[in-house]
């Protein structure tokens, strides 16, 4: 019996004439931290989107908990969450942005959880809660987007360059937060990053991709 959380089988995907993904077999064990790195255009972001069931491969299957899932909104999207590169915030306050996922799940008593999430990403709740989406710097936007996903405690969290636009201090805070939720909630992580040092220190496995293929696994 396969105990993997996610499985990718014989996936082949093209954009026009270019092969973007060509993966025979890949799986994610529950509670693991998988790191993915590689040059730009190697297919890392596309792979994450497929793991998040936001895009479907031309050929092959992506499984979560042993089953295929639709890319249209369905319950799997309450278990898998993606933080893309250059994340998008809704045109509302920070509080509303961070709380959005909790609200769609009709969760009660979300205020303390929102505050906790902001704290995890290093933003002062009293200052930031009522700020509007257009009153944030690039780095702050990214951290709010991350908080909006951390607060959901998904089974699988996919992060695409989570520390890309951040200064060193904020990067450290994020790295700590990411590692923390795995400890406290058993969240499985897939992290795409160019920060090899960080990935080497926490990820197992660490996968290197090139031109859509997984060429090395550490």
């Amino acid at each position: 019996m396969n105990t993997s959380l996610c499985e990718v089988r014989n996936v082949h995907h093209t954009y026009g004439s270019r092969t973007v993904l060509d993966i025979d077999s890949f799986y994610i064990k529950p509670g693991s931290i998988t790191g993915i790195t590689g040059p730009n255009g190697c297919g890392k972001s596309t792979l994450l989107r497929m793991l998040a069931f936001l895009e479907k491969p031309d050929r092959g299957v992506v499984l979560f908990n042993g089953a295929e899932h639709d890319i249209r909104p369905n319950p799997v999207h309450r278990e898998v969450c993606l933080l893309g590169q250059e994340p998008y915030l809704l045109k509302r306050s920070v509080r509303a942005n961070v709380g959005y996922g909790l609200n769609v799940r009709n969760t009660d008593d979300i205020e303390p959880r929102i505050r906790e999430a902001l704290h995890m990403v290093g933003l002062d709740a009293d200052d930031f809660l009522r700020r509007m989406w257009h009153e944030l710097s690039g780095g702050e936007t990214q951290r709010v987007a991350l908080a909006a996903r951390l607060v959901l405690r998904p089974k699988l969290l996919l992060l695409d360059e989570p520390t890309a636009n951040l200064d060193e201090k904020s990067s450290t805070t994020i790295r700590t937060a990411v590692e923390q939720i795995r400890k406290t909630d058993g969240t499985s992580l897939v992290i795409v990053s160019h920060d090899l040092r960080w990935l080497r220190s926490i990820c197992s496995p660490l996968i290197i991709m090139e031109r859509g293929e997984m060429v090395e696994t550490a």
Partner: protein
Amino acid sequence: MDFLLHGFFQAFHLLWTGDPETYSAIWTTVLVSTMSMAASLLIGIPLGFSLGINDFKGKKILRTLVDTLLSFPTVVIGLLVYAFLSRQGPLGDFGILFTLPGVAVGQTILGLPIIIALTATAVETLDKRLKPTLTTLGATPRQMLFTTILEARHSLMLAAMAAYGRIVSEVGISMMVGGNIKWHTRTITTAIALETGKGEFSVGIALGIVLMVVALGVNMCVSGLRKRAR
């Protein structure tokens, strides 16, 4: 020329002294334009939404058709609606000819292309990252619809103001379908047409200014809403 100046002062006189015919026209205008706006928005936003968000065969043709309807003359709409609502017409048994709901039907037809076209554009120009973001945050399709409308709210409010301007200033539909009946279907614009037709130009100007005052009031309310929606 001095009917302009005379009309200017007459406007304030009519409002200040509470002239019953003027206030009846104001109330009628507010009533029917509210009905028409509500119907245009409730029907137009979902339609514009599906037009903007979906890709289907003939989308371009449909979009061109909607855009062309933006130039539909009000007198022609009035004529068509009259034909349908007349006792001889297919909808005659509803008996809404010469009533405000009848006028509202016509004005809604006037406002719908504006709302649909501008909503479709607003949806098309939404950030492409919105849909995947909402999906990954776990929103259901219905929740996504509401949130998308809210994300587009600034453009939608603009669409609403454009439709309102066209609706509140039209004469052709109110006249043909409403009949300009005193106390019942006489709006500010049909009253202006009546007075200027009788040669009472200064009253026409006065009522025109009254209409602008009403429109100013509406705009101030929307402006307040805009601030809260920021």
